[in-house]
């Protein structure tokens, strides 16, 4: 490298420029401004040193380590690993460890070369170092497996995970076996050492813990869970590790941000990120539970139940961290099968069969049973193929969305909605073609005076689209996207989408019943007729279940709609005017995700305001209605709670883990908690209504409520369910 001192030239040039002149490249973007460094500012310039400060970290890797210091180092590494697993870059977490740095740089060509001090025979016989090295190798290899899992799935850089490795390979080329073997050796060494027994056991526990973690990750990479014994063992070791953490003795300078200088010269120094030790244990326990529990989705024997299972994980509180979410995502494509069960095509057909196409010759998997010799058979097959090609990917993507971070779930749904809307239009065309080719006879749907055709494919699309539509609104409520004064309108809108969905489900039911009748009257073989009838019954079961759920949702939403209308009338959550805005402009922002939908078409702002505010009804009348609605909502959720998360028989695959010791399976528990939360929210809504009724003429209460009324945030007391934002009133 050739260097020139440009200080003088720069000073001379700068002197010519009058203060206030900006010399700026037109292409210089905000991105670059934010990334730019201020030379000479120690907070930004990683090359800037205090007078007499050494550019290198001070730590001497040859100095002997006490067993208690070893223990401290290990716990610190566990801590920084947690920070990394929650999304912070390696440069601010594990790569601030001098020990990790030396193991990985220069890039070791053999595992033996990966040591704290290279080419030093004395190191090999240094007991504490051998033990720490084993721990670090296990740690780094685990990181490598975590990274592979996450980056093979869809994730958001920096939001979920920061993958920058700074050319460090994370022992990618060395097998997990060789690293586990080395750990066994270290455990023997540890036994032979003359450490005080308590500390020695504590250290051995940490190495064993790391071995267990690595083995777990190796299993995950192969799509397998670990057995319950290892799982329990891991928790036990964690408890032991936690209880001995206080033995640790700090090792000064073992972690340093100065290492960042060697990682990348153009990045400003960034502070080390650590978490509290309590968070370390909580995080690890949670992550282990999440990983293990996530395998229970394999019990789902049907596309619908799988969707329920994915949702239950997505809306767990706290949401699983990035690694378990990636693991859950990986099941969608494991060995090219969806949840180890079906090829994507068959998975899609399973869903169609249980919604709009029971016993249908349109599905490749039923064609041979229900096939009828139309002359247009091959045309129909071609159109069906068109449908499958178009939709398969979008359908699997719905499951994938539930593996994203909560904010992205909502934002991705907003986009997905527009896509499903477009697909629906295209599918209507395919439906029409199939309709005429198959000489379908129209029939009279409920509440209609016009005979109609089944439109089975677009009807299926519409059903899923309405689900996405509802979830877009509900995740908005979950994430407190809506300001208090908007909640009347948004609950009205939620209830109205549910209403549309209920009508659609009735229509779907009608055509399934038609199909059932047709099968029963057909001259198919007896066993085929029986199978067809069973398929129709399954579809009806599923449609009823959907109906019950959405009806219950509709009732709570309607009750809350009124509650917020009344609060608005009493100006309890209102914003003062004037504003740089009006209702129509705000409506446009709020409804942006729905603005361009062909169906359901968005109502005008005036109509929306009219429906929301219900000016024509008195507050008394409204509150009576809300009391009735919240009572019905409670009953409806109680009905739902009598069912289980799965509609279809559980899959008998070897993966199925029904909880140990006769406990309910994880999904049963999650489901029950979820529905119970909805029951409680309905009760809370009822209580709200009672309070409001009492306060009808109580102006003092209203003034008090203006100050004290609150919306419980996620995790707050009184937030009975993420979906349901019941106001806390005095």
């Amino acid at each position: 490298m050739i260097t020139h001192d440009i200080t003088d030239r720069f000073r001379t040039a700068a002197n010519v420029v009058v203060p206030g002149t900006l010399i700026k490249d037109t292409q210089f973007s905000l991105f670059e401004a934010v990334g730019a460094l201020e030379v000479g500012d120690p907070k930004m310039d990683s090359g800037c040193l205090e007078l007499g400060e050494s550019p290198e970290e001070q730590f001497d890797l040859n100095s002997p380590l006490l067993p208690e210091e070893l223990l401290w180092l290990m716990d610190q590494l566990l801590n920084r690993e947690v920070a990394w697993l929650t999304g912070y870059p390696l440069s601010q977490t594990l790569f601030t460890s001098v020990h990790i740095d030396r193991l990985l740089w220069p890039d070791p060509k053999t595992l033996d070369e990966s040591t704290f001090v290279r080419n030093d025979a004395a190191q090999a016989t240094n007991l504490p170092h051998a033990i720490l090295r084993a721990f670090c190798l296990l740690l780094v290899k685990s990181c490598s497996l975590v990274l592979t899992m996450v980056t093979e799935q869809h994730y958001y850089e920096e939001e979920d995970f920061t993958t920058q490795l700074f050319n460090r390979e994370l022992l990618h080329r060395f097998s997990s076996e060789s690293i586990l073997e080395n750990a066994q050796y270290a455990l023997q060494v540890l036994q032979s050492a003359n450490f005080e027994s308590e500390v020695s056991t504590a250290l051995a526990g940490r190495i064993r813990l790391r071995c267990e973690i690595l083995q777990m990750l190796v299993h995950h990479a192969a799509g397998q869970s670990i057995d319950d014994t290892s799982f329990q063992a891991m928790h036990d070791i964690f408890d032991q590790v936690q209880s001995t953490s206080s033995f640790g003795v700090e090792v000064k300078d073992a972690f340093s941000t100065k290492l960042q200088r060697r990682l990348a010269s153009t990045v400003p120094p960034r502070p080390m990120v650590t978490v509290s030790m309590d968070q370390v244990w909580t995080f690890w326990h949670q992550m282990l539970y999440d990983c293990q529990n996530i395998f229970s989705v394999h019990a789902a024997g049907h596309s619908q139940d799988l969707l329920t299972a994915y949702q239950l994980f997505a809306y767990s509180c706290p949401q699983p961290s990035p690694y378990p979410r990636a693991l859950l995502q990986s099941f969608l494509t494991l060995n090219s099968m969806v949840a180890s069960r079906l090829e994507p095509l068959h998975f899609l057909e399973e869903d169609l069969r249980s919604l709009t196409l029971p016993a249908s010759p349109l599905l490749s998997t039923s064609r041979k049973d229900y096939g009828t010799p139309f002359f247009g058979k091959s045309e129909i097959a071609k159109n069906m193929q068109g449908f499958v090609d178009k939709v398969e990917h979008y359908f699997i993507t719905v499951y994938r969305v539930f593996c994203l971070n909560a904010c992205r779930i909502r934002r991705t749904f907003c986009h997905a909605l527009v896509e499903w809307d477009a697909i629906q239009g295209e599918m209507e065309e395919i439906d029409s073609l199939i309709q005429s080719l198959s000489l379908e006879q129209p029939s009279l749907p409920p509440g209609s005076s016009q005979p109609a055709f089944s439109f089975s494919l677009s009807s299926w699309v519409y059903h899923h689209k309405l689900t996405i539509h509802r979830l877009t609104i509900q995740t908005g409520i979950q994430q407190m996207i809506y300001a208090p004064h908007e909640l009347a309108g948004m609950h009205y809108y939620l209830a109205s989408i549910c209403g549309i969905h209920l009508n659609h489900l009735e229509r779907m039911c009608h055509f399934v019943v038609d199909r059932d009748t047709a099968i029963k009257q057909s001259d198919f073989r007896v066993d085929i007729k029986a199978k067809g009838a069973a398929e129709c019954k399954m579809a009806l079961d599923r449609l009823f279940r959907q109906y019950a759920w959405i009806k219950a949702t509709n009732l709570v939403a309607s009750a809350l709609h009124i509650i917020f209308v009344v609060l608005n009338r009493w100006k309890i959550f209102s914003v003062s005017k004037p504003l740089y805005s009006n209702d129509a402009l705000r409506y446009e922002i709020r409804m942006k995700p729905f603005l361009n939908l062909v169906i359901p078409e968005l109502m005008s702002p005036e109509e929306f305001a009219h429906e929301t505010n219900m000016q024509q009804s008195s507050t008394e009348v409204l509150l009576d209605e809300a009391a009735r609605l919240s009572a019905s909502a409670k009953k409806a959720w109680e009905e739902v709670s009598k069912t289980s998360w799965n509609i279809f028989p559980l899959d008998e695959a070897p993966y199925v883990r029904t909880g140990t010791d006769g406990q309910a399976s994880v999904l049963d528990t999650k489901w029950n908690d979820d529905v119970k939360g909805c029951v409680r929210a309905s009760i809370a809504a009822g209580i709200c209504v009672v309070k409001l009724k009492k306060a009808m003429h109580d102006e003092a209460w209203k003034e008090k409520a203006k100050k004290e009324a609150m919306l419980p945030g996620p995790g707050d007391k009184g937030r009975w369910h993420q979906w349901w934002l019941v106001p806390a009133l005095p």
Partner: protein
Amino acid sequence: MSNEQVRPSAPVPTTLPLSEIGKLIQSNPPNISYIQYDISLEPKYLPQIRALISKDLSEPYSIYVYRYFLYQWPELCFIAIDTTTSENDLVAVVICKLERHRGGPMRGYIAMLATQEMHRGRGLAKTLVSKAIDLMIAKNADEIALETEETNTAAMRLYESLGFLRSKKLHRYYLNGNSAYRLLLYLKPGVGQIPTDDFYDPFGYNDLPPSAQDDPRFPQGQADKDDLFRRGIV
């Protein structure tokens, strides 16, 4: 039957043009003067602006970030000074920009806002923001956007009391790991329909590895370019 329900909520002053709103919002507490920024003020006020802003930042902005805004949109920066101090010290500041957002709407962006602790609650921030908004309206802005930390109720209330709505939540938006809300204000009807050269790229729909799509090193592939400006209170 009570009669309070028949009374419609206070009529929205829809007839009032947006350019008239500012007057109703801005306040003039004693001993405070508002000044529109100008490059010539840099020697005196930039150090104070930096000091005030960086108080609430986990990590400092470089001088380039300040100059990026202050040189390109000096007029969209407003400061409040305390006239009782001998040096007319700075007590509050707002820094903004205004440009076309991804080839679509003319977007005002409120980048930084802070009031010195002693002077909070006196309407300074609201007045400064209002002045900036007035100028953006005069310069034909279609919309105004900003981000604020999800726990920053003071800021959220302030913006919502001006008419902003939360449009989305941004996971781990700031370098300190906190999430943010994007807040949005439309100034004209139809802004939501102005096309942008936004390429929303639903994952897996093309064959890019997902990680590459949001790589910060490829800002043009970012879901939102402003997402890059994610350090502290902005």
